[in-house]
C-alpha cells in the first residue's frame, strides 16, 4: 500500500510523468486530462515523429514534453519528473512497469513520487514466478504442473520430470512434453522442450550450463509444456486498501504469432451461448475469476493487474503468471464493461485514480458486461516469414470510422511515418464491439476489409503487415 495515501493531494493537483511511448503514452495523457491531472511526456530522438509527441504538444502546457536519451534510463525519468514537478509516475506497459526496484526507488527517494501501479512489494512478490506458484498452491489455485522452486540437483530434476511426464500420460496426452527453463531467465531465453524422457538429462545439463553462463544462477524450472490450450486472462482492479478487488471480466488471448506473441484478444474469454465446448466454459470462467480474486485478496493487491491462465481442452485451468501492470489489451475488457450501467470505462484512468489513493467506490455487483469485444493488434510484420518485423516508411494509414470501433494508434494518419527500428513495429490497436460473437466478427472483418495501410522499405519492397493473418484468424475466434 502507498504510505500516507490519505495525505495525497486531489487529482487535479497532480502532475504525472508518462514514462512510456506510443499508443499507451497517448492513453495515459488522455486519461490524465479526463481526471483533470497534468502530465509530462517524454520521447527519444528515434521517436520524434510518434503521435504521442504530437499529442503532448497539442494537449499539454508548459513542461509537458521532454526529450530524453532513453526510455530505459531511470535517472533520466527521475530528473525530468523533478524538473517538471511531477508527483507521480505512470510506467505504462513494458520498460519499468514490472520492475520492483524502479517502483521502490520512485516511492523511497528523497523527493517521493507515487508509482501508478501496485506497490513495489507486490510487484516483487508476484513478479517472482516461483513465489507466485507457491502462493497459488497455498490457496489451492492450480499452477502449471512442475517444480515450484529452482532445481539445482540433477537427480531431483529427473524425479520431477518423471512426475510431469506421468501426469500427462494420465491426462491421456499422446505426446507428453516437458519444458526445461532457466529459473532466472526471461523473454523466452534459456527454454528447451523435451519429448523423450531419455533425453531429459542432456537437455537439463545444457540449460543449466546456459543459465549459469547467462544469469550466474544454474537453477532450472521443470514444467509441463501444454500444447493444446487456450490462453485466458482475468482483469483485476483494486484500490490502495487492497481489501476489495473486483474483476473486469476475462479475455481470451489464444490467437498468437508463431513466437507466442498475442495478436488478437477477445472479451469475454469464451462464448458458451454461441459456441459449444467440450467442457463447461462458464464454470471455467467463474473458476479462474474466483481463483484470481482469491490470490489478489491474499496479497492485498492494490492496483490493476492481470492473472494469466492456461485452460486445457478438458477445461482444466492452470495459473501461468500474474502481470502486475496494465496490459496492452485492457481496452477490450473496458469496452464491454459497465459500472452501474454506465459504459465508456477507461481502465487507465481507473488505474491512475486508484494509484493516487482514491477509493474504488463500487463493488463487484456494480460491474456488468455487455456484448463482445475483439482487439486486433495491427503490426508491420511478415506472417509468412515467421512474423519477422517489417521496418520502413508508412505512406498511408486510414480506416472507416464506426461507432463500434475504437482505434488506438501513435502512427500519424495525415503524414508519412518512418517506423523506428528501436521498438516493435506495433502500429495500432483496433477494438471492435458487437452485441454478440457473430456481430463482432462481422464488424471486425468489415473493419479489416476497409483498412488502408501502405508503405515501402529502403529496398522499395511493399509494406508487410499481419492484416491478412487477422482476417483469417477472425473465423476461429473463441473456438476450442
Amino acid at each position, binding site marked *: 500500500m502507498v504510505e500516507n495515501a490519505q495525505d495525497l493531494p486531489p487529482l487535479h493537483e497532480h502532475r504525472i510523468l508518462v514514462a512510456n511511448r506510443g499508443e499507451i503514452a497517448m492513453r495515459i495523457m488522455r486519461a490524465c486530462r479526463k481526471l483533470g491531472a497534468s502530465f509530462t511526456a517524454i520521447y*527519444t*530522438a528515434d521517436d520524434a515523429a510518434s503521435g504521442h509527441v504530437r499529442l503532448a504538444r497539442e494537449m499539454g502546457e508548459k513542461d509537458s514534453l*521532454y*526529450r*530524453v*536519451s532513453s526510455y530505459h*534510463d531511470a*535517472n*533520466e525519468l*527521475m*530528473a*525530468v519528473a523533478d*524538473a517538471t514537478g511531477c508527483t507521480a509516475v505512470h510506467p505504462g506497459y513494458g520498460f519499468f512497469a514490472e520492475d520492483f526496484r524502479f517502483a521502490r526507488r520512485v516511492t523511497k527517494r528523497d523527493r517521493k513520487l507515487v508509482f501508478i501501479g501496485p506497490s513495489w512489494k507486490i510487484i516483487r512478490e508476484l513478479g517472482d514466478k516461483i513465489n507466485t506458484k507457491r502462493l497459488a498452491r497455498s490457496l489451492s489455485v492450480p499452477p502449471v504442473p512442475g517444480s515450484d522452486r529452482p532445481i539445482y540437483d540433477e537427480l531431483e530434476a529427473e524425479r520431477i520430470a518423471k512426475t510431469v511426464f506421468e501426469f500427462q500420460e494420465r491426462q491421456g496426452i499422446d505426446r507428453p512434453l516437458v519444458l526445461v527453463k532457466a529459473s532466472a531467465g526471461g523473454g523466452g531465453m534459456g527454454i528447451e522442450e523435451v519429448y523423450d524422457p531419455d533425453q531429459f538429462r542432456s537437455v537439463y545439463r545444457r540449460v543449466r550450463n546456459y543459465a549459469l553462463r547467462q544469469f550466474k544462477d544454474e537453477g532450472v524450472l521443470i514444467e509441463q509444456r501444454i500444447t493444446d490450450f487456450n490462453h485466458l486472462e482475468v482483469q483485476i482492479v483494486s484500490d490502495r486498501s487492497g481489501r476489495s478487488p473486483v474483476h473486469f471480466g476475462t479475455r481470451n488471448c489464444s490467437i498468437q504469432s508463431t513466437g507466442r506473441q498475442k495478436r488478437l484478444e477477445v472479451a469475454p474469454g469464451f462464448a458458451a451461448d454461441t459456441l459449444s465446448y467440450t467442457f463447461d466454459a462458464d464454470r471455467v470462467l467463474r473458476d479462474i475469476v474466483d481463483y484470481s480474486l482469491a490470490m489478489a485478496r491474499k496479497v492485498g493487491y492494490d492496483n490493476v493487474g492481470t492473472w494469466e491462465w492456461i485452460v486445457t481442452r478438458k477445461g482444466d485451468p492452470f495459473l501461468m503468471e500474474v502481470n502486475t501492470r496494465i496490459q496492452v489489451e485492457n481496452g477490450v475488457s473496458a469496452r464491454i464493461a459497465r459500472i452501474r450501467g454506465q459504459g465508456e470505462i477507461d481502465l487507465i484512468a481507473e488505474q491512475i485514480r486508484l494509484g493516487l489513493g482514491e477509493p474504488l467506490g463500487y463493488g463487484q455487483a456494480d460491474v456488468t458486461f455487455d456484448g463482445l469485444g475483439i482487439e486486433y493488434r495491427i503490426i508491420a510484420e511478415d506472417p509468412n516469414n515467421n512474423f*519477422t*518485423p517489417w*521496418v520502413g516508411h508508412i505512406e498511408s494509414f486510414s480506416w472507416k470510422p464506426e461507432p463500434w470501433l475504437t482505434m488506438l494508434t501513435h502512427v500519424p494518419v495525415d503524414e508519412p511515418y518512418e517506423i523506428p*527500428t*528501436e*521498438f*516493435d*513495429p506495433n502500429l495500432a490497436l483496433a477494438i471492435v464491439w458487437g452485441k454478440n460473437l457473430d456481430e463482432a466478427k462481422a464488424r471486425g472483418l468489415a473493419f479489416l476489409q476497409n483498412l488502408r495501410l501502405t508503405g515501402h*522499405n*529502403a*529496398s522499395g519492397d511493399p509494406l508487410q503487415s499481419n492484416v491478412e493473418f487477422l482476417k483469417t484468424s477472425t473465423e476461429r475466434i473463441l473456438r476450442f
Partner: protein
Amino acid sequence: MIDISALLDEIKAQPFRDIVITTPHTGVVTFADIHQGDKAHGPQGQWKEKPGTVIATLERERNPKPICSAEKGVISLLHTELEGRFVEAGTPLAVLRHQLTRAEVENLILRKALHLFPAPERAKYYFTPDVDKKIRASDAHSVIVREGMELLIMSRMKREVPLHYSGPSGVIYAVYFKYNENIDAGAPLIGVCPQDQLPTIQEVIMRVQTDWAEKD
C-alpha cells in the same frame, strides 16, 4: 580512377568541420570557464585516456557529468543562455570548429576510392563470428570478401538476419560501423578494395600524408 589532386584541393578550400556538442542526457547545465574563440583539445594520451577540454558539466540526480570536447578545435559558439537551466537530451551546448586531421582527410578520400557496401536498413550490424574472429586475430585487411558471402549480421527489433555481401571481390579496407551502434539505411558499412587496386590506394594514402599538413 579518382582525381586525388582535385579532391585534395576541394578539401583544402574548406578544411573545417563544425562539430555540435550536445547533451547526452537531461540535466542542469553549468558551463566551464571557457569562451567563444578559445581553443579546445580532444582526448589525449597514448590510449586517449585523458579527456578533452571540459565544455560544461551536466548534473542529473546529483551526478555531475563533465561534457568534454571529443576533438581539438576552436569554440565558435557557446549557448551560455543555458547556464543553470535543466535541458533535454540532445540540446546543443557549443559548436567546435575542427580542422580536419590527416586521418580524416584519408577517410574522406577513401570513401570516394573504395567500393562502399551500404546498410540496407537502419539497424545494428555485426560481423559473422568467423569474420569477426579473423579480424580480431589480425585486422580487417586480412579478410577477402566476394559476391554472396555471408559477411554481416543485421540486428533490429530483437531479430537477427544474415547479410550477404554484394560487390566486387577484395579486401575490407575500412570498417564504418561500431559495435552496438545503429547505422542508417544507405550509410556505408565497409569499404572494399579489389586486390589489384591495393597499390593505387596505398598511393592515395601516401599522397595525403605528404600533401596534408597537420595544424595545431
